[in-house]
């Protein structure tokens, strides 16, 4: 039953609120419009980054304040505004609606819903441009953010409040790592924000489906600007996403934000800058393209306990061309972030997935956030793998090798195989400890080469089925005792004996698993 009185009352309330609004405003007239850029004469009181309102209800952002005119970019209505149209200043910057109601939603960079669900009734909003937390407000990064990916959590650990760049060529699994990380935050009390900047709408739709099917949408918000959106919207998207993340961070919550990707963001900003006739610099990017990303990524932080202890962990993504990490945008973002995960197409094509280049990937602050047990057993892993790679390159030409070298090579290959992981198959910390312990023991010699990945997956299933208490015994926050290590190895050996003898069954099981996940 619709309550007519209530509707009437709310209309009266809204009408009275509307008429009370002030009607004295600064205005100007459009003297040029083209390529989404307008020049406005008048508007003498306007400030930098102020939101403008164009006759007809379109929004624009004032970016160039010149002697006789103001240069602004239109968010919409590029083909609707006319010469001579009135432009009003609003006295405020762009705001993003924030709140719990944004979770599970897909919105554009101005906070309008794109998912066809109900309208968003946010009671609060935050400016999209906001100063980063001050030095004294920051705490130490000391809590891990588990990605669920063995290669990353063991060797390139990410802490809450860290900024870790994911960099690599196209089609190397950059987005896959980010999506896997979001999926792994299920039940971890981490709010996730995925910002798509200039992505193909089809890829974004696929990501949304993945998140929905895996139950990750209820704790995720997607801020979307696709390749067909105007450059100003693509430019705004990461800042809008960050404003939303800040809302949760200042409430003391942990937030993970993915910027996919910042190279397209720089391109969108370059488009705007060139059209606004700002001087072009290296690769035609404007002079402030470094500041563009540094002010964004500085907003990711871990707050001190006095400030609530919340955090924003940022995973910016940058796409390189032909592996060139010395291009302008990659070097900029590498120098801003606290480390990078470098993905290589060569590794990807040879079947190493995730295609992490362990030698070039680093995490500058995550080490102190790593769980104690993981740190203990992964300490040697990086060194061992480096030794193996060096030897493998050196031995490429040699035919007859002594037994010791052959053993090192075979161990290295198996260790590399251990780090291979199927997409959407995330490991828990305890599972990682088991796999790392096994891969660094003598037991690894008994497992046939090329069967390592299958063995690992089988072993975890076997433990879950037959030795569930073993996983409970592992305490990730204290070091692994010798007796626990022996327990893990004895179970692993037990599984070798029952699986290696029954190879076809193992392969059948693997086939079943992969069809399950697809």
């Amino acid at each position: 039953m619709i309550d007519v009185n209530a509707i009437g009352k709310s209309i009266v309330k809204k009408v009275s609120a509307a008429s009370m609004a002030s009607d004295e405003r600064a205005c100007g007239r459009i003297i040029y419009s083209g390529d989404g850029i307008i020049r406005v004469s008048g508007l003498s009181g306007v400030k930098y980054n102020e939101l403008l309102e164009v006759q007809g209800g379109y929004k624009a952002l004032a970016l160039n304040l010149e002697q006789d005119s103001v240069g602004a970019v239109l968010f919409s209505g590029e083909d609707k505004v006319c010469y001579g149209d009135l432009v009003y200043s609003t006295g405020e910057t762009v705001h993003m609606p924030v709140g719990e109601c944004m979770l599970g939603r897909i919105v554009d960079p101005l906070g309008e819903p794109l998912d066809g669900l109900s309208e968003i009734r946010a009671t609060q909003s935050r400016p999209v441009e906001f100063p980063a937390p001050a030095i004294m407000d920051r705490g130490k990064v000391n809590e891990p953010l588990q990605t669920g990916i063995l290669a990353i959590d063991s060797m390139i650990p990410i802490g809450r409040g860290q900024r870790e760049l994911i960099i690599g060529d196209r089609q190397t699994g950059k987005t896959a790592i980010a999506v896997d990380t979001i999926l792994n935050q299920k039940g971890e009390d981490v709010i996730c924000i995925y910002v798509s900047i200039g992505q193909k709408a089809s890829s974004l739709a696929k990501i949304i489906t993945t998140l929905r099917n895996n139950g990750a949408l209820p704790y995720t918000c997607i801020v979307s600007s696709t390749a067909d959106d105007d450059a100003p919207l693509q430019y705004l998207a990461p800042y809008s996403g960050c404003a939303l993340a800040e809302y949760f961070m200042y409430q003391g919550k942990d937030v993970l934000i993915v910027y996919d990707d910042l190279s397209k963001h720089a391109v969108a900003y370059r488009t705007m800058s060139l059209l606004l006739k700002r001087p072009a610099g290296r690769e035609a990017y404007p002079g402030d393209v470094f500041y563009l990303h540094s002010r964004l990524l500085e907003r990711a932080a871990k707050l001190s306990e006095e400030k609530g202890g919340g955090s924003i962990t940022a995973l910016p993504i940058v796409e390189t061309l032909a592996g060139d990490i010395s291009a302008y945008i990659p070097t900029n973002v590498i120098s801003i972030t606290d480390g990078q995960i470098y993905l290589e197409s060569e590794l990807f094509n040879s079947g190493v997935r995730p295609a992490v280049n362990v030698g070039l990937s680093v995490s500058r602050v995550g080490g102190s956030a790593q769980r104690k047990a993981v740190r203990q057993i992964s300490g040697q892993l990086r060194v061992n793998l480096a030794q193996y790679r060096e030897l493998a390159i050196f031995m490429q030409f040699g035919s007859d090798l002594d037994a010791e070298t052959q053993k090192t090579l075979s161990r290295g290959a198996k260790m590399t195989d251990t780090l291979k992981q199927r997409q959407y198959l995330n490991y828990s910390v305890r599972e990682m400890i088991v796999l790392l312990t096994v891969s660094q023991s003598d037991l690894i010699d008994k497992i046939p080469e090329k069967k390592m990945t299958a063995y690992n997956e089988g072993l975890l299933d076997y433990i879950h089925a037959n030795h569930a208490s073993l996983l409970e015994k592992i305490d990730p926050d204290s070091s692994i005792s010798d007796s626990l290590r022996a327990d893990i190895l004895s179970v692993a050996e037990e599984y070798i004996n029952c699986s290696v003898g029954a190879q076809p069954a193992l392969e059948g099981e693997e086939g079943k698993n992969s069809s399950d996940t697809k």
Partner: protein
Amino acid sequence: MSSQNKITAKVILARKPDSETMEKIEAFVRKRGCANAVYEIDSGIIGGIIVYIGDIVYDGSVKSRLEKIRSGIAD
């Protein structure tokens, strides 16, 4: 201040004002540093008045009020 005095205000009305309204408008315009004003009749604003002084617009038209109400209800 002398340059301010040279600014001409532009006043838009829906219909021809009576002398009392004229006086009010002139007082309003003079208070904001304008020596003279040009008048324009535009029935498109339905009713009320719009005054442009330099960059500032004082919009008291019925049309813009109605638009505000429309967008207020739509939100």
